[in-house]
């Protein structure tokens, strides 16, 4: 058999990130602690370079390479661009936080970049094998990141829990993949899709495989009832890592669901729609209800994430291109909000002080009116109040659900989002209606301040003019 070299051009961004990450790993060894900012700078350059490469190779028509294991299409490129953007913001926000806690090490950035690489592979995977490869690369980086603060018992516990449950989920996913492979004889998503479409595959095995896949995906997304790890990990991990976990990986998880369920098993939509409805309703209900009882803001945002995952599933389960576009829009918007929310939390923390409780936000309006305003915008956006982009995200998802005649599902969604509005309002209440308990001046470095302002204002700007991003999402899912 002759070996034919595959076309490497579409994989250029991945190759670039991998090369530079390895380079950073080597360079970092030779740096002294005071020169650590070089590692940080290089990490940002990697993301910038990858973004440029993705933009340069952007094409609307999908290209598969690596013997069908890899696909480059508009959806992947769009998601990757937002992954770079979110990761760059994460690296910037956490820089000062890490420095104050003696956690400012090369590992954070190297692991972060490996995670980015994993996400890129997930986003562009075109076979069940490469999906799994990307997912494991991301997950292993995340397990290690959660444990970076070795001396913290909470963080170690969170890392342990995350690792055990994450491995279980990976096992489920792998078991499902093996069944799909058994039923269709291939891991290539195109071949799987064709086989399922012609019903030449054994249906019972296929549906069993689907169940395991959905369970595995629900674990990774954090959908109820497979959400147990999420609050503990969000709370236990250092805020810089929570910030990372809460943002870009959601984009990759969305791609994961799209690739496996829609691209691969799209013809089984009738089967997985039922499962996703249950997951979505439980996530929206439980996420919003339990979040009310939280006093720790990181834990509260974890439950809020669970409810957002439920909303995201609403779009996918509609099974229409408009629904997928709506979900993608929702995911991107959610990531922008999550980066902003955790970003504000992280800049409020100082050396020796963690801003972790909702009470730590008391009187923020007196300490820093601008940060208070940004946080209010982010909270209102998460609650889905208009003129903020969070409203449009909820609206398009509900639109997709009503389109397929599931009006009751839309009603469940809005009722719980009203209940959910309460805990977002409570944060705004602390910020604006209470007197500050601390008087320390909030110090922000110039670049962090610019980034976080841009982040918050983006939610307003997108709220006034959401068309561009919506159209972009719709165009990306056209094929």
């Amino acid at each position, binding site marked *: 058999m002759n070996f034919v070299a595959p076309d490497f051009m579409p994989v250029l961004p991945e190759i670039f990130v991998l090369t530079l990450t390895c380079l950073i790993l080597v360079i970092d060894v030779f740096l002294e602690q005071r020169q650590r900012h070089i590692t940080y700078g290089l990490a940002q350059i990697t993301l910038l370079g990858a973004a440029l490469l993705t933009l340069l190779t952007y094409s609307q028509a999908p290209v598969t390479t690596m013997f069908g294991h890899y696909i480059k299409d508009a959806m992947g490129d769009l998601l990757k661009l937002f992954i770079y953007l979110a990761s760059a913001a994460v690296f910037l926000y956490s820089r000062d936080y890490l420095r104050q806690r003696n956690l400012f090490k090369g590992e954070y950035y190297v692991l972060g970049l490996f995670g980015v690489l994993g996400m890129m592979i997930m986003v562009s995977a075109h076979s069940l094998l490469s999906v799994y490869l990307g997912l494991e690369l991301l997950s292993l980086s995340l397990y290690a990141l959660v444990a970076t603060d070795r001396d913290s018992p909470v963080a170690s516990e969170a890392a342990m829990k995350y690792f055990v449950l994450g491995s279980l989920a990976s096992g489920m996913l792998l078991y499902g993949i093996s069944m799909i492979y058994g039923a269709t004889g291939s891991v290539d998503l195109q071949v799987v899709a064709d086989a399922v479409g012609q019903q030449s595959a054994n249906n019972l095995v296929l549906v069993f495989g689907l169940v395991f896949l959905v369970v595995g995906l629900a674990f990774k997304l954090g959908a109820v009832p497979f959400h147990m790890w999420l609050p503990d990990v969000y709370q236990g991990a250092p805020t810089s890592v929570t910030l990372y976990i809460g943002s870009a990986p959601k984009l990759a998880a969305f791609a994961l669901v799209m690739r496996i369920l829609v691209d691969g098993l799209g013809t089984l939509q009738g089967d997985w729609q039922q499962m996703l409805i249950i997951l979505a309703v439980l996530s929206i209900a439980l996420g919003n209800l339990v979040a009310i009882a939280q006093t720790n803001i990181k834990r509260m945002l974890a439950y809020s994430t669970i409810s957002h995952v439920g909303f995201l599933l609403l779009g996918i389960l509609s099974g229409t291109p408009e629904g997928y576009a709506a979900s993608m829009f929702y995911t991107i918007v959610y990531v922008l909000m999550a980066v902003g929310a955790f970003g504000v939390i992280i800049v409020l923390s100082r050396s020796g002080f963690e801003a972790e409780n909702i009470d730590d936000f008391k009187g923020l*309006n007196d300490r820093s*009116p601008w940060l208070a305003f940004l946080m*209010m915008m982010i909270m*209102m956006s998460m609650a889905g*109040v*208009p*003129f903020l982009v969070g*409203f*449009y995200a909820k*609206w*398009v998802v*509900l*639109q997709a659900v*009503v*389109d397929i005649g599931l*009006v009751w599902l*839309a*009603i469940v969604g*809005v*009722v719980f*989002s*009203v209940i959910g*509005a*309460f805990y977002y*309002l*409570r944060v*705004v*209440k602390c910020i*604006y*209606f209470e007197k500050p308990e601390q008087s320390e001046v909030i110090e922000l470095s110039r670049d962090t301040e610019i980034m976080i302002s841009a982040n918050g204002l983006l939610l307003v700007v997108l709220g006034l*003019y*959401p*068309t561009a991003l*919506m*159209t972009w999402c*719709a165009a990306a899912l056209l094929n």
Partner: protein
Amino acid sequence: MLSELPLLSLVIWFPILGGIAVLFVGDENPVRVKALALTVAILSFLISIPLFSHFDATTAAMQFQEFVPWIPAFNVNYHLGVDGFSMPLILLTAFMTVLVVIAGWEVIQYRIAQYMAAFLIMEGLMIGVFAALDAILFYVFFEAMLIPMFLIIGIWGGPRRVYATIKFFLYTFLGSVFMLIALIYMYNQASSFEILDFHKLPLNITEQVLIFFAFLLGFAVKVPMWPVHTWLPDAHVEAPTGGSVILAAITLKIGGYGFLRFALPITPDASAMLDWLIITMSLVAVVYIGLVALIQQDMKKLIAYSSIAHMGFVTLGFFIVFGIERSTGSLSGAAMGIEGGMVQMVSHGFISGALFLCVGVLYDRVHSRQIKDYGGVANTMPIFAAFMVLFGMANSGLPGTSGFVGEFMVILSSFKASFWIAFLASATLILGAAYTLWLVKRVIFGEIGNQHVAELEDVNTREIIMLSLLAAAVLLLGVWPDPLTSVMHASVDNLVQHVVASKLL
């Protein structure tokens, strides 16, 4: 030349941008902030005047229209326009905001820039609600309004402000989300979010009833109608004076306006079928809430309950049309009910705003809203007492004041529908007089109640200006309501014709 200007956009965005500018000026120089805020408010009012002077009262068509595609994927457009219903309410909004800025002049000491900015932004959003002709645009303005009001009550309110403001927010939010689902549902039928397309959309009776209830939830909370009114007394009592004024004078009107713009024309058959429900709720508001108002110890709470009772009149007037058609077989008098409701909305905007400002004047001096802490105020504040008596008379519907016109029209037209409806509605004349005049008697007249009252100083120039502006409006509308009613004749007639025509397939 004037017709070329995007007048409505200007009226919406000028105060919003002005509010942002006020925020950036900051608290360092309070005088400059207040001057800027007042300039913005007055200019916004001046910009809105051409809407009235250039309004073509002969047509029910939308005027001053602006149309820009906004979210083409869902056929959502930035579509503005006004007719005889929305135009007077826009002017009322711009006018009341000027008064609110004046009212906050010396009283608000804490975070003055944010206070002024919140009201200016609120003004733009409320005008947006009245001007929007696209359902999503309407919804966006409708919901966005909650944020500034939430902050106004929460930051500058009284001791239980947090409870009151969260209750206010969640109540209104819950009411309106069902409306969103109804709008999405209709979009699937009409492929458009244009409100005017919804008016023409044929719907079967089940759909109409469900959509009607979605609207009812959204707007009944806003009006507020009995039994979903409980947020209002809390919000009013805790809100700062300016917040109460805007709540009573404008945001309640948005609920009434919603019935005219959405519920009646979009679901006429369901409205006809369920008009007994609205009329019952309205009459309960008029009679029962009137009785509740009678026993209040807190002046603001009393006026809040009086607002609910008066708004009951508005919804009664809007929905009496079907009763008239059923009992007389003709439509004569139906238009008067809707027109009366509209006059009542504008008039109540002036009167309730004025009463809240009066309470504010007293509260600023004595720091109490309890009726028992006053008595004999007329002895120390004669000018103020004159104003308060005037507004009290207007609130109880004395002929010659604006309060009389709307109530009289509604009662007259409900007589055509049923004697008993008219009878119960007329109870407001007695109850309204009872609780308002008794309030005035206990606060204004009699012996000087205590030391605080004895030391009161009469209203200063600033307060005289704002109260006399309102007094002029109340009297003018009372003796010469024609400028207001003539602009809406065409729209009202059009609506009456529209709602009696069935939309069933």
